[in-house]
């Protein structure tokens, strides 16, 4: 079946079309596959609204327009904390096309950038609404985007408090066996309010509650890391796909979380 594509000039118009059931086309790296296969929704909407590509940097946070591409993130030195995640999204062509907004709704095993944003405690600004919505809410039902995301507000982590790691079989551009990100704010040497997020370990990016519980209030020491690693996969239900089985993902989750935490411990 062929699809009809509408081009509108503002996000507000696009949001109205999406509310009526249209599929939003951003970078197209996922939507166009469906279009090519004749499996896309009959109505597709895209916008040429330039605000979609805005990047705003302030002291303690950054705002990324939903249409900002991975390549744009990588070209911006103020976004260095997001580079390890952006660099791991596909090959160069995909990074030139794929957007921040699209990554939030990319199906398994995709969504590695969203994993980083989830750990950072980012919020989504929905088109036509003021105030941000925690990504945690948005990630709970990714299967269809409830409304249009206009931008992402992301707190800037203190130096050394954030880490991201992606594991893939084909390097440098394979899809995820898993990805994991950790934000470990520290007060007087102790971790306060850690956030751990996993990719490819559930239906979409999700928080690692067991790891967070065991990190909270602790020093990032070898003993802490050992305890966290034991419980890393608790509460996660990874899918089985062509890349790995659920069993394998659970088995190796702790190993990779350990590598990430040790890397952060060394600073």
């Amino acid at each position, binding site marked *: 079946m*062929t*699809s*009809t*594509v509408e*081009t509108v000039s503002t996000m507000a118009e696009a949001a109205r079309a999406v509310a009526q059931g249209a599929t939003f*086309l951003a970078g*197209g*790296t996922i939507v*166009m*596959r469906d*279009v*090519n*296969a004749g499996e*896309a929704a009959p109505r*597709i909407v*895209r916008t040429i609204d330039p605000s979609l590509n805005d990047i705003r940097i302030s002291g303690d946070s950054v705002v990324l327009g939903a249409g900002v591409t991975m*390549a744009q993130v990588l070209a911006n030195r103020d976004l260095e904390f997001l580079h390890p995640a952006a660099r791991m999204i*596909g*090959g*160069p*062509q*995909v990074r*030139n*096309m794929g957007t921040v907004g699209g990554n939030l709704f990319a199906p398994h095993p995709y969504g590695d950038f969203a994993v980083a944003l989830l750990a950072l405690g980012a919020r989504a600004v929905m088109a036509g609404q003021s105030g941000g919505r925690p990504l945690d809410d948005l990630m709970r039902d990714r299967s269809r985007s409830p409304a249009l995301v206009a931008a992402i507000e992301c707190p800037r982590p203190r130096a050394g408090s954030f880490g991201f790691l992606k594991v893939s079989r084909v390097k*440098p*551009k394979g899809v995820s066996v898993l990805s994991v990100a950790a934000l470990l704010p520290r007060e007087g040497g102790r971790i306060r309010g850690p956030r751990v997020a996993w990719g490819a370990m559930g239906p979409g990016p999700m928080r690692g509650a067991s790891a967070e519980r065991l990190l909270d209030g602790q020093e990032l020491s070898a003993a802490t890391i050992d305890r966290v690693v034991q419980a890393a996969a608790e509460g996660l239900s990874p899918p089985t796909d062509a890349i790995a089985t659920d069993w394998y993902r659970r088995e190796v989750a702790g190993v990779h979380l350990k590598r990430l935490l040790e890397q952060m411990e060394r600073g």
Partner: protein
Amino acid sequence: MAKKPVHFSHNGVERAAFADDGQNLLEFLRRGAGDLSPKYGCGQGTCGACTVMIDGETQLSCLVLAESIDGKSIRTAAGLASDQLDPLQVAFMDHFAAQCGYCTPGMLVSARALLERNPKPTREEVMEAISGNLCRCTGYEPIISAILAVAEGRAQA
């Protein structure tokens, strides 16, 4: 089905053509603009055979909506040679970097984009630049050597 007029620069030549609703850029270039250099490999963005430059950036033409290139500049492998071959094309021949040749136009576009951004890439940077282009014949070594030869000025133009 609605047809949409698209004005674009095609390898330096201003052109206009009609795009079908939902048509991808690869089909548009091959059928609408008669440029057969971008290849159809997978239609899913995995193989890179359809790689073209849009305003200087490599993109996968099979995943680009044709009408979205209105007002933009498209470069394909067909536009690399002028009266002479591009040094990359010569180096690909000298290094036997093409066997079946299906990935070659995409490889050339990715390599050209790299050298314009970074004329002296390291081996790692070359590998990264072609990581979105699959080749099932050469094992990549001859391709990497050809690109490095041009970067290091060892290839005859």
